[in-house]
């Protein structure tokens, strides 16, 4: 059997167990909803306005910086696996590759994007 089918099996079983537990809670728990109980929790007072508010752009910048390094990892893992066979030349290439991306991080830093204001 293909290895990834086992992974799929793990995914299915990993979903069955929590669904089973939640279903047990659904079966055995009381069901007595009322409007006050179903209200959004906001420290006991009536909720003010919508919860889906506009959010800080800061998180978006962090996600962008993260994305740079995440994509980088996809390229660097094969490089790390074959490093023993490729020798010093590949290491220098890796250093150049990482330093190009670090320039991006330094740019974001110098622009003050990593500061929390």
């Amino acid at each position, binding site marked *: *059997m293909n*290895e990834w089918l*086992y*992974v799929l*099996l*793990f*995914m299915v*079983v*990993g979903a069955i*167990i*929590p*669904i089973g*537990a*939640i279903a*047990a*809670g*659904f079966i*055995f*728990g*009381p069901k007595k*909803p009322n409007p006050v*109980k*179903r*209200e*959004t*929790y*906001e420290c006991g007072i009536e*909720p003010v306005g919508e*919860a*889906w*508010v506009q959010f800080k752009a800061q*998180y978006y910048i*962090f*996600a962008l*910086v*993260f994305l740079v*390094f*995440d994509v980088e*990892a*996809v390229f*660097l*893992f094969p490089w*790390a*696996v*074959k*490093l*023993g*066979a490729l*020798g*010093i030349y*590949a*290491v220098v290439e890796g*250093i150049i590759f*990482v330093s190009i991306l*670090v320039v991006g*991080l330094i740019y974001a*830093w110098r622009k003050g994007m*990593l*500061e*929390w204001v």
Partner: protein
Amino acid sequence: MNFWNDPLKVAAEWLEGVFVGWGMNEIASHVLVVFLGVFLLVLILMVIDIFLVWIERKVVARFQDRIGPNRLGPFGLVQPFADIIKLIIKEDTTPDGADKVVYNLAPVLSMMSVLMVWAVVPIAPVMLSVDLNVGALFLIATGAIGTLSIIMAGWSSNNKFALIGGFRQVAIMVAFEVPMLATLMIPTIFSGSMNMNAIITAQDGLWFFVLSPLGALIFLIAAIAELGRAPFDLAEGESELVAGYSTEYSGMKFGMFYAGELLHALTFGGIWSILFFGGYRFFGLEQVSPFLAILIFLAKALLGYWVIMWVKYTMLRIRIDQMLVFNWVFLTPLAFALMLVTALMNALLKDASPWLYGLGMFLSNVVVGWIAIEIARSVSRKEREKVEGVHQVAEAHH
């Protein structure tokens, strides 16, 4: 080949024989046996998870000079089962205006992401579920499902606390995934493979912890941040954010987040031990029997879990801006510098004797760590002088 040496294979062959004897198709019986095996592993993990609740409460009690649960059963061992019964018979409320599908899917995904990691974790030499050749990348991929579940929970609850908590937690998780990726490459460089079993086999002579202590430390810090535990537990905070992304969850759905977090901590303890402490290996003892190997692996995973708890209950929380600056300006460059230095030393010392290789790696780690700490110290000294200088001026005016 007997049960003592390879219990899984013996049991699987016996079961398949039984199923075929019942008149079942051979392929169907094979699939059924594999399914039962996976189900058994996940079930055992859930039982361990239940006892983790007890372990966590006992350990935190000892750290805080208390006794902890001791009423139900011997040493309070029955306490977690009582907790589960309580969670099951709680009413499961859904707030008005919540996005129901996403809201209900989030706890399932949270648990699933942790259980899926165990697909690539080798628990004994002959017992590994899937021998993926991209094991290290698989870890990161399943971690991304966990991140997704948190942002789903935070967004779908229709609650401001949940939204802010979810965003914070995700910002932490994606930020600390970068140093984790970089340190995951260090065992990959040493063993020349992303396969978990190959990484363990490559630690035949020396644990990778000896070759790269700094890498192990950075991995631990990143793992604690991924777990959202103190000192990086910014998603929760009774006085500011209630319970963060899980504010609106009750009953078993909350239980899934809670159990998922605990099992995640044990899983990271296990992965830490695989990557840097030789996994199920312990001076040849693992060759005696797979049962012994499982015990060794479990002991190492629990030790890693204990270290994570130790950090959690002795460190202060830090602010989110301090934490993100710590990650992006200090930890990420340090992790990448360490990874590149390791790659360079690996290429230079390839033909050297194992002793010279180990010594060179260890010393390069010490030097990189020392330089990083010196830079951090000089920067923080300047920062302190700036602040204290202002104070002195203010005092002079007074």
